């Protein structure tokens, strides 16, 4: 038996969060705690971007909550002057689910890493995504365990030599975007720690999305995995390494051609049903894939995500893979409660008396 749950008809992820009339500054969002990441850590850039982006949301600062798990990135909440909880390893999505379900008036953010979200907390991540709880998950992916000093992570490339894998890792890595799409995520994006502009644009879209937004952020660990993302950061190689995804535009990359656009592109691969890279000069313009992040069918987004290198990263699609509307768990849970409360009469105390006195009772005088 299934029930018609109805659609809450809400659009923005922050629609029910109280706003702040006065302009805010990044400084207001900066706590008094000393930031203690290693010099050169990619986390600094993300923190700065978030501190400067949050004022743009125009929300009341006390209605913003950051929850993290365990790992280098999970120290993040300590450095933001909002409400926050540094929880336990892998479980941040569970705490955030409770907060977001209990309170419609909060903007809820999860900060996690590749080990926290994909290894010990993998189960919670996929279930948060399928439920579509209204929260934004920032997944800092440095493809290594930093806080425990350099073991391979579930996103490390096969063959990686680390302290725990002196002969090379024999694990095959997760592709976080593919995983999220397979877990029914309604918003999936990938961005880069060092590209402030792109990062901020993605954060903005993620916050505006009502439901669980997963943002994978490539983040360099200068101590244990330095250079993991050099190919997409190096000015000489990044044009070929980054496949930019912009909704409604042809997916083109590589060296610029005469039209000022990339000379390489994505096209459907009819032999596999997937997507392949082609030279623009080799295909008809109509065969170049136009990115549709809003497609109800995630197959093409998944196919694009497969173009991410699983070994050393020489190629990766960057941008918003998928953004579709789907009713959120928390809105629907609250709607059921509201419906039940609307149908009830009398104050809670009277109703409690009614509840415990219901059924077969007898009276002894």
């Amino acid at each position: 038996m299934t029930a018609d749950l109805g659609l809450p008809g809400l659009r923005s992820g922050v629609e029910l969060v109280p706003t702040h009339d006065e302009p805010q500054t990044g400084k207001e969002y900066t706590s008094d705690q000393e930031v203690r990441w290693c010099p050169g850590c990619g986390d600094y850039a993300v923190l700065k971007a978030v501190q400067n982006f949050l004022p743009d949301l125009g929300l009341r600062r006390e209605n913003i909550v950051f929850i993290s798990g365990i790992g280098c990135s999970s120290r993040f909440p300590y450095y933001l002057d909002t409400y926050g909880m540094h929880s336990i390893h892998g479980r941040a999505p569970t705490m955030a689910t409770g907060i977001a379900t209990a309170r419609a008036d909060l903007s809820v953010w999860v900060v996690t890493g590749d080990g926290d979200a994909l290894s010990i907390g993998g189960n919670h991540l996929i279930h948060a995504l399928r439920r579509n709880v209204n929260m934004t998950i920032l997944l800092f992916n440095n493809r290594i365990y930093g806080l425990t000093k350099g073991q391979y992570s579930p996103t490390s490339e096969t063959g990686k030599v680390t302290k725990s894998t002196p002969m090379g890792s024999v694990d095959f890595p997760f592709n976080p975007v593919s995983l999220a799409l397979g877990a029914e995520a309604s918003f999936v994006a990938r961005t880069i720690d060092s590209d402030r502009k792109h990062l901020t644009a993605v954060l903005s879209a993620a916050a505006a999305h009502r439901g669980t937004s997963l943002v994978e952020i490539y983040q360099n660990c200068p101590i244990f995995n330095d250079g993991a993302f050099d190919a997409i950061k190096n000015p000489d190689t990044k044009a070929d390494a980054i496949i930019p995804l912009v909704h409604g535009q042809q997916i083109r990359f590589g060296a610029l051609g005469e039209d000022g656009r990339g000379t390489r592109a994505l096209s459907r691969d009819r032999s596999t049903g997937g997507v392949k890279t082609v030279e623009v000069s080799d295909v008809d313009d109509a065969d170049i894939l136009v990115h549709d992040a809003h497609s109800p069918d995630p197959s093409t987004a998944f196919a694009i995500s497969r173009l991410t290198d699983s070994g050393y990263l020489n190629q990766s699609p960057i941008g918003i893979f998928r953004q579709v509307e789907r009713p959120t768990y928390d809105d629907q849970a609250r709607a059921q409660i509201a419906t039940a409360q609307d149908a009830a009469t009398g104050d809670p105390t009277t109703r409690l008396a009614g509840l415990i006195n219901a059924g077969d009772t007898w009276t002894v005088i």
Partner: protein
Amino acid sequence: MKQESRHEVTQPTKQVKQLDRVIIRFAGDSGDGMQLTGDRFTQESAVFGNDLVTLPNFPAEIRAPQGTLPGVSSFQVHFADHDILTAGDAPDVLVAMNPAALRANLGDLPKGATIIVDTHDFTARNLTKAGYSANPLDGDDLAEFAVHPVDLTGMTVEAVKEFGLSRKDAARAKNMFALGLLSWMYGRPTESTNAFLTKRFAKVPDIRDANLRAFKSGWNFGETTETFIVRYEIKPAPMPAGTYRNITGNLALSYGLIAGGVQSGLPVFLGSYPITPASDILHELSKHKSFGVTTFQAEDEIAGVGAAIGAAFAGSLGVTTTSGPGLSLKSEAIGLAVMTELPLLVIDVQRGGPSTGLPTKTEQADLLHAMFGRNGEAPVPIIAPQSPGDCFDAALEATRIAITYRTPVILLSDGYLANGSEPWRIPDVADLPTINPDFATDRNHGEGDEAEFWPYSRDAETLARPWAIPGTPGLEHRIGGLEKGDGHGNISYDPANHDFMVRTRQAKVDRIADSLPPLAVDDPSGDAKVLVLGWGSTYGPIGAGVRRVRKAGYKVAQAHLRHLNPFPHDLGDILKRYDKVLVPEMNLGQLSLLLRGKYLVDVVGYNEVRGLPLKAAVLADVIGGLVADAEGIEVDLTPATTAVEGEHA
């Protein structure tokens, strides 16, 4: 005393015999509806006004192979014309729906017990499945019992044939035929069962009518057959004035949690993963959204407690419900709640362990887990209900402690309390305690523009920290699992601070004892030398055992702990007042270990882990032995156990 329901008129051809108490066990295949049958008989007895205690006992398998011993499900009900405390040690009457049910339960029957068997299922095939080489109804094997072979199934099928059901569907009403027969035999009022069947099968009129007919036919069969010439009368029990209902522990606990929400003004948030025998609390609470109760069925046990902690941070009454294996999984998160000092209720409906253990059987072996089962020094208050109805009060008390002291609280129920039932005097809501969440609204450190919010400032009396929930301007703060600096709550690795904070968290839990009433000790003569101390669901058997000993003329004191951590302040003094302290538990001596460690008292344990409640007669013998030792006298309990069946107050 006045009862709303009355007996049916007794037929003149039948004898009526007065009894003060009866124990009936309904047993059959897990698909035979024995739990429902027992539950209906219980409701009828409750409405009639008997005191009663029930013991459901069913396999972990939903449908074990039909007709086999592992598939036997049973429901025992003990009802009396006086105040009783247990579901009874041994059934006076066994209703066995097949050979396996007979074989599985025969060993529990005392000589002279009545056995009613459904002969229909005593086929060669079923006898073999149950391990019988010959039909026990034919030989002398059952000579010491009063056996009534009745073709319950055949008569049921015959009685309902006008409804045109398949033979299989018709036969399924046999449990109602049996219920009708037993209802006649013990003069039970039938209105509540008729109303129940009418409602339950409202959408399938054929099935409804067949069940109603089978129930009535069972009654009529009793009245007309010559097989049963005696019916029994068990008068209503005198009980304190009030309105009563029959209630199971899980239902009372659910109501207690709802009451905790109402009395604190907080929305209840339950994060839970289904697990036997706790799932019924999830089911029940999910029905009460009108009280603002949110139920979140999580992806696993950890997510259940995690979401509850998140909801608590956001200002809800966070609750998670589980059983032993789930408590293991939640350990780390409970440690986080200890460190972040957030109110949280952890309900552990204990079952047989370790590991998956005995999912549908009862045990009390999670006490030390609740006490110590976390990394680091992580004290958690522990409380335990003592009877099904008491689960309501225990849930409210757990709520009080969690909110007042900003701490996770573990409530240890068990499978016997969860599924067992008793008449419950419904409390007046006006008498329930109010619980003030006392959310922080203002900065609490420094003055004027310099004022800050310190999340780890403490209340001088309770040592509780402020509960500042998101949405409160000016109180933005971060908490987490890393050690906190005293007061300001920022991360601190300072050795002296850690030592101070560890001691402070312990002191906060210890101070809960300041809010507890003195431990009630039942010592009628005031000079007993033996004290029996228990906790949790052993209250009934201990109380019944103590009564037997007293009835035989000996002195014994009894006390029962609601609070296992911290203990009441006067417990140490009480223990030292007695020469011998007996601690019966359904574990290998966990409370005993805590008492010996804390008070250096050489308590004597009585320990059983059979997945079943302790037996009053066994406890009476153990107590008698200790009384003999302590007082240097001979103790003979024989008169008490035979003449009075022990339980008269």
